[in-house]
């Protein structure tokens, strides 16, 4: 069992990890940049170390500073959270080389599934349906056009090293594909330092459905059911829920088994999310694996009653998955709204600033995951996610009603937040009737 963990992250996920560690009797070391100095959640850790200035490159994403902090505080493990270095194979490798347990997959498994092209190939091998696409990396525009015409427009150019919805461009014909190809490569280079791209058929109006999986190094893997994350704005998830409201039991089981096959094929361990697109005919296609814990993990925790962060810590500490699949039950409906410090009225421009009044909602069926407090200042250095509101009720209608009530109660002022946008979505006829897809927001708002 792990005895001391350094949390290589910040904000709400750092607090989430500290909470799980405390309940398990694991000591915690939090790190912070100068921009996060004074954050109250740092006081909940046993120790807090300043590792650098606000710029993430010199703090939260600086491998030398993180490892150094880990060494001087004598931790035996590092939890990378999500974002930052969570899916950085080099970081995972260096932790291993330094004798520090990385709470996540091995560098090899991360490398294998983190490369979208290799993951596709592995999926095919494991008998998991994939989106029709290129056999590998597309070298240039000429090849792109050839492949696109073979699989049929519209197509999407995607970064091999990508994630988080970046380095992606849709094209409907040869001419727009030329531009799309160049743009996607450039964005991929800028965002991930790797300009390699591949091509996939662009599925029209798909639902985004992902399966939560936890595996151990002994080859055991369990699924914790699916989440529907179709409510996205420019590929950024806004609202997530479980179960997927349009899947029947047979399809749900088939989806989950596909996810498990892929994870086992990759000899993956710890937490992962396998992402699929669901088309109008309820056919699903694998797109990618996220080799980390995700922002929306609380949705799964609410419907299964399982603590996913604790599972991560247990697996990393050497415990096997001593749980049977049958013992993981799915109860009711959970919905999560991500609250960002952005102004919906001005095209979601970021709204940094000081929070003078902060009153999070409560009551039955409501969970709020946030690191914020009254008096906090939202800076421009990090992403704009400031809170997650998760509700859990026996039915979808009740969950929506509770979420509306909770969001109406939630006071964050004077900065602008996306709460009004979430409320609009929750009352939208199409959302309530489950007639949504990943283009819903971009089309209607």
């Amino acid at each position, binding site marked *: 069992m792990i005895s001391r963990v350094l949390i290589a992250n910040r904000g709400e996920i750092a607090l989430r990890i500290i909470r799980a560690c405390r309940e398990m009797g694991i000591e915690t070391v939090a790190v912070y940049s*100068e921009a996060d100095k004074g954050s109250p959640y740092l006081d909940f850790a046993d*120790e807090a170390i300043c590792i650098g200035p606000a710029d993430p490159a010199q703090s939260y994403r600086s491998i030398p500073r993180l490892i150094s902090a880990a060494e001087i505080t004598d931790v035996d493990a590092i939890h990378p959270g999500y974002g930052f270095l969570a899916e950085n194979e080099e970081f995972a490798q260096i932790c291993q080389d330094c004798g520090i347990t990385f709470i996540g997959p091995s560098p090899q498994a991360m490398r294998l599934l983190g490369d979208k092209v290799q993951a596709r190939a592995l999926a095919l091998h494991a008998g998991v349906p994939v989106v029709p696409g290129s056999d590998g990396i597309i070298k240039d525009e000429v090849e792109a056009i050839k492949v696109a015409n073979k699989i049929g427009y519209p197509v999407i150019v995607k970064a091999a090293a990508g994630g988080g919805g970046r380095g992606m461009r849709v094209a409907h014909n040869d001419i727009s594909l030329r531009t799309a190809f160049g743009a996607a490569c450039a964005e991929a280079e800028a965002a991930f330092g790797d300009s390699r791209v591949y091509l996939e058929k662009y599925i029209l109006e798909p639902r985004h459905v992902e399966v939560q999986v936890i595996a151990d190094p002994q080859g055991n893997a369990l699924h914790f059911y699916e989440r529907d994350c179709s409510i996205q704005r420019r590929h950024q998830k806004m609202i997530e829920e479980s179960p997927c409201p349009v899947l029947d039991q047979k399809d749900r089981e088939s989806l989950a088994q596909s996810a498990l096959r892929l994870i086992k094929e990759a000899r993956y361990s710890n937490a992962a999310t396998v992402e699929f697109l669901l088309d109008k005919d309820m056919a699903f296609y694998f797109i990618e694996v996220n080799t980390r814990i995700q922002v929306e993990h609380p949705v799964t925790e609410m419907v299964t009653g399982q603590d996913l962060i604790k599972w991560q810590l247990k697996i990393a500490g050497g415990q096997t998955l001593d749980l049977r699949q049958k013992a993981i039950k799915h109860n009711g409906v959970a919905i999560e709204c991500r609250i960002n410090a952005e102004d919906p009225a001005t095209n979601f421009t970021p709204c940094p600033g000081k929070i003078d009044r902060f009153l999070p909602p409560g009551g039955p069926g409501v969970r709020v995951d946030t690191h914020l407090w009254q008096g906090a200042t939202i800076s421009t250095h990090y992403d704009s996610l400031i809170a997650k509101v998760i509700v859990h009720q026996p039915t979808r209608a009740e969950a929506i009603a509770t979420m509306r009530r909770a969001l109406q109660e939630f006071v964050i002022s004077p900065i602008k937040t996306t709460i009004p946008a979430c409320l609009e979505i929750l009352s939208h006829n199409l959302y309530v009737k489950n007639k949504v897809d990943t283009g819903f927001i971009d089309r209607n708002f």
Partner: protein
Amino acid sequence: MTPEASDLKRIKELIQIMEEHDLVEIQMEHGQDKVCLKRAQPQATNVTALPMPGPAGAVGGTARSTGPAGAQGQPLPQEEGLVEIKAPLVGTFYQASGPDSDPYVEVGSHVDAQMVVCVIEAMKVMNEIKAETSGTIMAVLARNGQAVQYGQPLFRVRSD
């Protein structure tokens, strides 16, 4: 034990606590009795309270003496012309290049911007830290072998 002898024993214990934890002043009241001890500070310029450099010290738990936010009992520079050299890295502070070498600088040493004042070891690499300021060392704020965090004050320098 006679009352006077037990008083003396208590005072000796307090002195030991002060030295161990680098405290400047300690006051103890017990009923009618009151003991107040102040330690002479050759390096101090002011006796004002030092705010903790990080929030970690507030939470109990580990008794790690390498904790970078441990109380140092050194006063904050209020005088003009005093500049702090702060750690640009996270790591272990060393005053000299090796265990048998002389310290790079001491109180009273004169430094210029390019002069190496200490080493911070990070990930098995010894990083030489330059003064980046010109003046005289007035205080050494970190102990040899102490873990230091980013931004932690290491030296106080009176600028030229």
